[in-house]
């Protein structure tokens, strides 16, 4: 299976893009995790430190009270119990704020608060009572609550640590995934990069090669076109020579033979006169052939500026007016439907209609009045069924010229368009066989098509297909 280079490049870019997006998302997730972990670590440290501060303050306070009990030295009570309690409360409030999104910690704090309050009361009672009284009991009670507080604090630290451990497990998971992921992505990216480079380089080289070839072809084409122009010029030169130089001796033959007859006609035996007359007739025919050849060689010659919008209806009317006399004399019935306006050379299209109609008149059946039906319809290229694929949406005009003349055998349908091809002897029908060849040439020059359908003894149909617009392919 061959994948086109375009497709390959597209797939390559799609894969690279997908990898990039995936890598970005993963990086984002891992970074999020990293940040969360760091934040939480910080959080845990803060909580632990604050709990430590609380515990230390409590223990300091207890030690101070005990010291005062033993020495009665009031310096032990500096700072005062109220100040210590205030400090502890301050830390406690901060702990509340820090752990507000953790309900179990909040619950622990609630318990801690109760224990702290008890502890505060003990402190106050201890330091207000008379020295030496039941100091033992209060020490024991103090220690019991202190142990409870310690335990609660340990619980809280434990919870924080547990969360941190969980987070770091996730973090480890992500980071252990991250390294191979980055590695694979990098390898993949390098691979795609190298592959793209190779493909693009290859493609680029191919492109350069194709361009060079195209330039070559273009040059060759231009050379051929120039050659063709040259040939055309040669052909025109030939046509001119044919019309001029070849006719020169012919004219002389006929002039001399004419003079021969005029001057010595009476002295010539009759068969000699006959021979001269035949010679004159042959020369006359030769001249007509040369002139027709010349007309034919010129008929396809069309320049882009001779192209214009031609109203075929008006054109047909003009052409028919030329046939008026013979139409009336021979009782010919010519009808035509509405004709479109198409792009073309007016003089050439005029010639086309002229030739088709005079052809119909020439080959009329002597046993019945001639009827010629000319009709036109608009078709798309596809409907015509004969034009090239790329022209299937172009509009074409189909003109049908139908007569009830002598017709011809369908086998000759192609041949009648060849130059100097005739289906009848010169004695039967005049002419050199140039008319339909000119028609074909004119239609080819208009990028059209012509075909003929003959029905021996019944009539003939000529179908002309002409595009509405002429392509500028010069």
């Amino acid at each position, binding site marked *: 299976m061959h994948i086109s280079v375009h497709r390959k490049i597209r797939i390559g870019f799609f894969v690279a893009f997908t990898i990039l997006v995936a890598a970005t998302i993963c990086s984002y997730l891992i970074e999020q995790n990293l940040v969360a972990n760091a934040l939480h670590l910080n959080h845990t440290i803060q909580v632990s430190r604050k709990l430590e501060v609380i515990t230390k303050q409590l223990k300091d306070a207890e030690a101070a009270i005990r010291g005062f009990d033993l020495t009665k030295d009031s310096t032990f009570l500096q700072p005062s119990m109220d100040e210590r309690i205030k400090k502890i409360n301050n830390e406690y409030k901060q702990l509340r704020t820090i752990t507000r999104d953790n309900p179990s910690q909040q619950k622990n704090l609630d318990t801690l608060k109760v224990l702290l309050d008890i502890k505060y009361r003990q402190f106050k009672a201890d330091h207000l009572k008379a020295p030496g009284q039941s100091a033992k009991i209060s020490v024991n009670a103090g220690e019991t609550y202190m142990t409870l507080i310690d335990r609660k604090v340990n619980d809280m630290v434990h919870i924080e640590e547990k969360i941190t451990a969980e987070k770091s497990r996730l973090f480890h998971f992500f980071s252990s995934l991250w390294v191979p992921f980055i590695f694979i992505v990098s390898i993949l990216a390098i691979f795609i990069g190298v592959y793209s480079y190779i493909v693009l380089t290859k493609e680029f080289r191919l492109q350069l090669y194709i361009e060079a070839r195209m330039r070559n072809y273009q040059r060759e084409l231009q050379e051929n076109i120039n050659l063709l122009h040259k040939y055309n010029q040669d052909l025109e030169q030939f046509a001119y020579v044919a019309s*001029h130089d070849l006719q*020169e001796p012919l004219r*002389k033959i*006929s002039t001399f033979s004419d003079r021969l007859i005029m001057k010595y006609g009476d002295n010539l035996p009759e068969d000699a006169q006959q021979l001269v007359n035949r010679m004159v007739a042959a020369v006359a025919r030769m001249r007509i052939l040369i002139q027709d050849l010349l007309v034919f060689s010129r008929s396809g010659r069309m320049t882009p500026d001779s192209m214009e919008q031609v109203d075929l209806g008006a054109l047909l009317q003009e052409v028919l007016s030329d046939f008026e006399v013979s139409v009336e004399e021979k009782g010919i019935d010519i009808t035509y439907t509405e004709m479109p306006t198409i792009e073309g050379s007016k003089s050439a299209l005029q010639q086309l209609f002229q030739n088709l109609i005079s052809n119909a008149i020439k080959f009329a059946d002597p046993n019945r009045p001639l009827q010629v039906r000319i009709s036109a319809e608009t078709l798309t290229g596809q409907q015509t069924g004969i034009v090239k694929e790329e022209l299937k949406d172009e509009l074409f005009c189909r003109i049908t010229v139908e007569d009830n003349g002598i017709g011809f055998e369908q086998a000759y349908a192609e041949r009648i368009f060849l130059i100097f091809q005739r289906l009848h002897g010169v004695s039967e029908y005049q002419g050199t066989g140039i008319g339909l060849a000119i028609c074909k040439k004119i239609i080819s020059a208009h990028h059209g098509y012509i075909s003929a359908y003959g029905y021996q003894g019944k009539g003939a149909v000529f179908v002309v297909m002409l595009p509405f617009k002429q392509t500028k392919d010069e």
Partner: protein
Amino acid sequence: MNKQLTDEKRYILVADDDADDRDMLLAAFTESNLPQQLIFVENGEELMLYLRRKGKYRDEIAFPHPKLILLDLNMPKKDGREALEEIRADKHLKGLPIIVVTTSKEERDVERCYEIGANSFIIKPVTFSALLEFCSIISQYWFNLVEMPPLND
């Protein structure tokens, strides 16, 4: 005496390289008993020398000034078109009536010749009888019907 002769006898200068055509034309004119006299030159260069009285054409009596020129288009050295252009560009000659007589009616030739100042464009007759008719029409039209410009020498 000479002046009288030139006035009476109207000269037609024929420029044609084809000897057969010159002979035929002369025969046709002679046989038709036309009063005009033909003078022949064989190419455009000779035609210009003749009209400008240069080279061997210095002698005014031997080579009288023509009233009309019959000009073939395709001639060696200097062809009819060039000669025609030259005559029309020459202030002494530009009024001379010129009839282009040639073998074919190549459309661009017809157009061009009228553009550069030909008075008529005629295809050479193909039969002798047509040639006779041609001669008589030329004589009739250019020497009886049409007023010719006065000779300016």
